[in-house]
């Protein structure tokens, strides 16, 4: 079979028309596939956490005050709204507005990360390490730092991505679609936090 025949067959099968799967642009499809894979990663971590919590007799409940977690949740949820406003402004052609909202989102992400680190330092100050804590099984520290650390890593990566995409969007190298892709990632980070807070923090509240 000649090269020309192969090309004709591919045309007949719709393989060389440049139509992406589901008519979704390639970048958006890529971030959705990443989100699906990452959702499985976080789900596996939370499942392992639940497995250990269920199987351990002396699971600690170290959280007395949830003000910090409540504030972190509020900030992250608000950052999702500001990201939406940024993408909306970009789609409307409002470049300065889109850049401003994206930078506000990044700043909120930084504030969230700083509050998260403060939370960690407070727990470390009370004697909690990866494999030891004064309240119960040492598995708690490992699972707590793993899950919240993975989330914090995602937030940090998200802030870097928002800064990079936002600056390049302002400079004209990136477009509204790129901002939307970054926004999808940011909303996913927010979505994961909706599960981390109740299972890792609120179910371990000391009454």
């Amino acid at each position, binding site marked *: 079979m000649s090269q020309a025949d192969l090309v004709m067959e591919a045309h007949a099968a719709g393989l060389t*028309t440049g139509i992406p799967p589901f008519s979704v642009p390639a970048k958006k499809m890529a971030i959705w596939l990443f989100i699906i894979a990452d959702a499985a990663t976080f789900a596996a971590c939370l499942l392992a956490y639940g*497995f250990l919590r*269920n199987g351990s007799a002396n699971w600690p409940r170290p959280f007395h005050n949830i003000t910090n977690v409540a504030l972190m949740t509020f900030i992250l949820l608000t950052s999702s709204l500001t990201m*939406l406003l940024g993408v909306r402004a970009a789609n409307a052609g409002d470049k300065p507005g889109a850049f401003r909202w994206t930078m506000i989102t990044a700043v909120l992400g930084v504030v969230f990360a700083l509050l998260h680190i403060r939370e960690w330092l407070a727990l470390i100050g009370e004697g909690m390490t990866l494999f030891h804590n004064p309240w119960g099984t040492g598995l708690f520290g490992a699972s707590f730092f793993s899950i919240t650390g993975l989330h914090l890593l995602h937030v940090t990566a998200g802030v870097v991505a928002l800064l990079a995409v936002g600056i390049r969007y302002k400079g004209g190298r990136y477009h509204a679609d790129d901002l939307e892709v970054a926004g999808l990632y940011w909303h996913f980070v927010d979505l994961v936090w909706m599960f981390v807070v*109740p299972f890792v923090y609120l*179910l371990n509240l000391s009454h």
Partner: protein
Amino acid sequence: MVDAPDVQRHEPAARYMDSLGKYIVIYLCILILAALQFVIAYSHVDTTAMFARMLFIALAEAGLALMFFMHLWGEKRGFFLFVVIFTGFVLLAMQYGWTDSYRMELGAPYSQPRTGVVQQ
């Protein structure tokens, strides 16, 4: 000779321009649901009931975020089904591990005679 499929027949990628009011309503709904989780955390119910309530609320929050913040609801039907069915299957398949977790806590099912049960 077979003609190539017409690219123009396919719709362009969706571009979202939802109203600001809609975004704020969804944001407030998610905030209220999150606040509800904090209220439940201080209620006097057992851990299993608390877990079930929190999971239900977290799923509602995630659903709102997925559908309206991430615009999955506005995507093409095929893509929507692909994401929901594929992700749902993977996440549900993971729950297989729970049986072993309960074995760790309670022992293998029927491994020990229960009190008051006459063995024949």
